[in-house]
């Protein structure tokens, strides 16, 4: 299973990637929507974990672009905002169970990743 993490906070995304690697989960990371789209062109990702608030292309727009090109890809949103509007948008786009508010507990994240991947017949 190929995982893509997208967050404009490089420090956050690289550390999260390392913690997932310790647990045997390889994940690529990108710090912008543009970078994520380029990476998705050369690698077939099964799941993308997206920050909602990223520069220029929002997480929601990025999800729509990725989903259009790769309809099988699954998504989880992470956000620093806990606003009602963000929750509504995130819930509609990915489902309420796949909308996580930072700081994210790594066990919860892995559980959600497995749930998302189970929907396409896979697991971590």
């Amino acid at each position, binding site marked *: 299973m190929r995982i893509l993490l997208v967050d*404009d*906070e490089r*420090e*956050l995304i690289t*550390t*999260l990637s*390392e*913690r997932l690697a*310790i647990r045997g989960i390889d994940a690529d990371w990108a710090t912008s929507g543009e970078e994520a789209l380029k990476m998705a062109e050369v690698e077939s990702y099964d799941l993308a974990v997206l920050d909602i*608030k*990223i*520069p*220029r292309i929002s997480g929601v727009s990025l999800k729509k672009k990725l989903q259009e090109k790769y309809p099988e890809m699954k998504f989880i949103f992470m956000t*620093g*905002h806990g*606003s009602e509007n963000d929750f509504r948008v995130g819930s509609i786009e990915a489902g309420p169970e796949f909308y996580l508010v*930072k*700081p*994210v507990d*790594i066990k919860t994240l892995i559980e959600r990743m497995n749930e998302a991947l189970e929907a396409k017949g896979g697991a971590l």
Partner: protein
Amino acid sequence: MSGGLYAVSESSLQFFGAMTASISHEINNVLAIINENAGLLEDFTLMADKGVPIDPERLKTLAGKIMTQIRRADKIIKKMNKFAHSVDGPIKRVNLGDLIELVVALSNRFASMRGITLEVKHPPNPVIITTNVFFLENLLWLCLDLAMDVTGPDKKVTLSVETAGIGGVIRFSGLEDAHGRMSNIAGNDGLLGALKGKLDIDLETRDISVTLPSDINN
């Protein structure tokens, strides 16, 4: 409450809400990074329990990363504190250079989300006026928000301060097409009136300027 005063109050509340929401998001990001770094430290100790040696250099690096985030949070909180105290005594003397630095610091996250860079140009000598600081911050944010919508291809807005005879001018430069969009700001007559200010748009130089009196009490 009169219509004008109501509009100012509503605008001010929206401004305060937008800024505090943005600051809380910034702090949350810092906490999320500290959370991951602390989690990684915990992972290392769990690995050590299983016999995997801990590299002291990795621990040193992680401690350094956490300290960096604490310094970042300290800066955010100082900025928030300065902003919160804007409403202490509404009318006071203020260095316009310092004020635009604060407005830019408060707005940087909004700019970053739009892929825009904000630049501050200081005057050779400080320009100090007596004004309603919070209302002025509110008006400058509204101007900056508009300026970011109409920025030129280099995606940069420059804020500068100039002396203007009896007061000061704050200029927003680097705009592409502000014409026709000014109604958003012009609708804030209440704020401009409360500040005894004047708003101008120059289509030739493509900038917006706010002219303010040296003392709002006079």
